[in-house]
């Protein structure tokens, strides 16, 4: 049976990888081209002033401009550093909170409604408090990023931990596993595909919170570039940066999360093996 499965999967891998990747990108490219065409069409109708509603060519020029001035790379770097630090802290705190919620059922029941409420709480509403506590600083941006994603991370981590079939835990306890070993060697690997989905949810919350906060009060970063464009009535820069933010969202989702998710699922046969 194993041999036949392997034989099948061998056949599947014969197709060159690069070809496949390019082919599945086609629909995405078509949508992008259609979007730009529609955009250009609207611009050609001259409904709005060009400086309020720039065309694709203006935005492309602006993109080139912020790239040439080194502004774009610097902004991306600043934003990504904040995101990584903030998101990692949020993952760690979220994991602890989720574990407490699952392990101590009463505590979980008591805190769950508030955590759910805080999860839907708009992260921008934390900005005033953050500014008063931390001033116009990196810490203030990190605070918004963390607090904006922490509760989503906790809720989805807790849900992920609850998916672990009890029979795995019984089998492991039966073989003498307990305490931290049980968590690290059974609970976490058993919940891994769900934990990755949970992290994916968390990252999107962190990303939105951070960009939002940057728009309001950062002095460097992608959010800041958007806001600067507005201040100078440089709408092309606003749009160019928005496109960069969008593309980065897609890339992180595809390259970081979808890849790891696929890997984790494939390993246990939830997807056809490569």
């Amino acid at each position, binding site marked *: *049976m194993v041999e036949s499965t392997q034989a099948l999967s061998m056949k599947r891998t014969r197709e060159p990888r690069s070809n496949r990747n390019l082919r599945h990108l086609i629909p995405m490219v078509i949508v992008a081209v259609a979007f730009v065409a529609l955009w250009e069409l609207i611009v050609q109708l001259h409904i709005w002033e060009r400086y309020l509603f720039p065309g694709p060519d203006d935005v492309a020029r602006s993109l080139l401009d912020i790239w040439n001035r080194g502004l774009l790379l610097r902004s991306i770097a600043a934003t990504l550093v904040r995101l990584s630090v903030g998101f990692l802290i949020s993952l760690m705190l979220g994991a602890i909170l989720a574990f407490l919620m699952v392990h101590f059922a009463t505590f979980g029941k008591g805190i769950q409604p508030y955590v759910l409420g805080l999860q839907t709480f708009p992260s921008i509403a934390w900005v005033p408090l953050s500014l008063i506590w931390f001033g116009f600083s990196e810490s203030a941006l990190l605070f918004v990023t963390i607090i904006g994603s922490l509760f989503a991370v906790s809720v989805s981590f807790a849900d992920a931990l609850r998916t672990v079939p009890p029979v795995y835990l019984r089998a492991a*306890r039966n*073989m*003498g*596993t307990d305490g931290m070993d049980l968590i690290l060697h*059974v609970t976490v690997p058993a919940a*891994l595909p769900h934990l990755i989905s949970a992290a994916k949810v968390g990252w999107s919350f962190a990303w939105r919170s951070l960009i939002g906060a940057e728009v309001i009060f950062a002095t460097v970063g992608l959010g800041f570039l958007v806001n600067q464009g507005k201040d100078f009535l440089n709408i092309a820069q606003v749009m160019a940066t928005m496109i960069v933010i969008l593309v980065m969202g897609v890339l992180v989702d595809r390259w970081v999360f979808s890849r790891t998710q696929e890997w984790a699922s494939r390993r246990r046969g939830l997807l056809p093996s490569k």
Partner: protein
Amino acid sequence: MKGAALKLVMLGKRFTRKTTRTDALRDVNLEISEGEFLTIVGPSGCGKSTLLNLVAGLEEPTTGWVEMDGHQIRGPGADRIVVFQDAALFPWLDVKRNVEFGLRVAGVRRAERIKRVGEYLKMVQLEKFARARVHELSGGMKQRVALARALVLRPRVLLMDEPFAALDIQTREEMQSVVQDLWLRSGTTTLFVTHDVREAALLGDRIVVLSHRPGTVSAILENTAPRPRTLDNPEVMEHIRRSNEILKQEVQWSNQPKL
């Protein structure tokens, strides 16, 4: 390692949920000698699995206690290993790592682990599948891995909880002879729970018939048929007939309207 002697004393288990109480097991007294193969058969819901879980230490008894070689059991331990109905292999590990799991927990050194895993995979004839993933295995192969994972720890008591209930009939019969062979070689005290009287009569030195809920011992049959046995052995067939009779009475009795 030699099998252990077990003693179940006034063993009872009651599950309490918000408003309902269920007596799963009541006043079970059993003595199992070193190296014995004891099968436990009973209708579904008679507390068979609960009995195994109590011996495994995965659940606490409400009344009574379990002794192993004269010492009361408190909590789970690798000296009493359960083989679960659905194998309960870890899908994030390959076959080899599944079998190795308990040894790692016990802190056995690498060289020794590799040697023993190889030895037991060979014993269940799966050495070629060491690197296979759990989802690539058939039901019977999964149970072989589960057996290897249990036996590699050289437990003193092997607890089998309807391990072959989900298998097709051919695979089940094949697995029954695998278990019989392994038991003859290892001499591990074995408690084998099943709802299949044929399986119970084929494998057991003694067959314990449990009554419907709450589970109590309604009969113990001695089975002296020589091993290795097959289902067409006359004594085995006679035990199948007798256990069936007792079970039928149990089921009829439990279906009577209660006043």
